[in-house]
């Protein structure tokens, strides 16, 4: 609690200095927040140069919009949103996007009864135990990378970047319901990709 209050008052002071055009304050802002912003940009963009460019775009947008920063949200949250926007803009402008069919990664059902064609098998109990292990985390990141971009981005924004459904819908340019369905399918597809690693079934 107290750390948060201190962080808030520091941020307010920093914003006030930025608005006065204090050069050192700009450097402080970039040093304090750039690392976290670069990580967010890397999650969305597959290429390191693109991620750096997105961070630069984000800072330039933020400098321009400082007058609009209300101070109601945390400075870090505000910068995070701007970074996500900048990264998505870059992703949209890329010609070689990774788009693919999601259908083959979704569960299939029998026509008449609506039963699973491949009956789900319970995952091994230990599936959560190695959660902290970097190996498991790398495996999951690799599987997320394999999702078609449309779905990968929906999952990232909702479940990892923590956007609310209405924000997500606005970012994706869809209705809230369509955004919800996209996130759900992305999770289902990710589940399919992870499944063989946690049931011991052949991939």
């Amino acid at each position, binding site marked *: 609690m107290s750390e948060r209050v201190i962080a808030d008052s520091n941020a307010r002071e920093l914003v006030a200095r930025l608005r006065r055009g204090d050069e050192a304050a700009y450097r402080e802002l970039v040093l304090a927040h750039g690392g976290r912003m670069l990580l967010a940009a890397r999650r969305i963009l597959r290429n390191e140069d693109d991620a750096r460019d997105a961070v630069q775009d984000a800072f330039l947008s933020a400098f321009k919009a400082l007058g609009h920063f209300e101070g109601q949200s945390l400075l870090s949250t505000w910068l995070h949103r701007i970074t996500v926007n900048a990264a998505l803009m870059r992703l949209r402008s890329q010609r070689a996007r990774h788009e693919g069919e999601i259908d083959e990664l979704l569960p299939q059902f029998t026509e008449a009864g609506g*039963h699973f064609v491949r009956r789900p098998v319970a995952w091994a109990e230990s599936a959560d135990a190695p959660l902290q292990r970097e190996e498991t985390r790398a495996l999951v990141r690799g599987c997320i990378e394999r999702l078609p971009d449309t779905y990968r981005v929906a999952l990232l924004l909702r479940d990892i970047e923590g956007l609310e459904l209405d924000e997500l819908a606005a970012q994706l340019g869809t209705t809230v319901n369509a955004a919800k369905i996209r996130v759900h399918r992305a999770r289902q597809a990710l589940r399919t990709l992870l499944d063989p690693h946690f049931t011991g079934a052949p991939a």
Partner: protein
Amino acid sequence: MNCDEVLSRAYDYFEHALSPDERALVDRHVAGCPRCGELFAKAREMSCRDFSAGCGELVDGTAADERRRLFERHLSICRACVAYLESYERTLKLAKSAHSIGAEQLEALEERLVDAILAARKQRG
């Protein structure tokens, strides 16, 4: 037909894979047996396909009460969907932790990039 015989045919019943005679026997038993009647009623309410399509709402806690009860009724008769739901929830947890930041991972921007950002700001006035 007794309960066991009916239950062993339940899958084929809903797949429309029983002969008309067998189907009639199952129907007759189900109509007179409260336990099997309840089970078949639950199976009619929601298929695994519907469960799978909607289980995200259940996990996110956005399902309305009535709909949540339907999901729970389906889960009470379907081990496949219990397994599916569990692995879906674990997928979500794994996704969330896959990108969590450890202190060691958080690096400051390279000086070169910091300078580039500050220079670009001045250029654009």
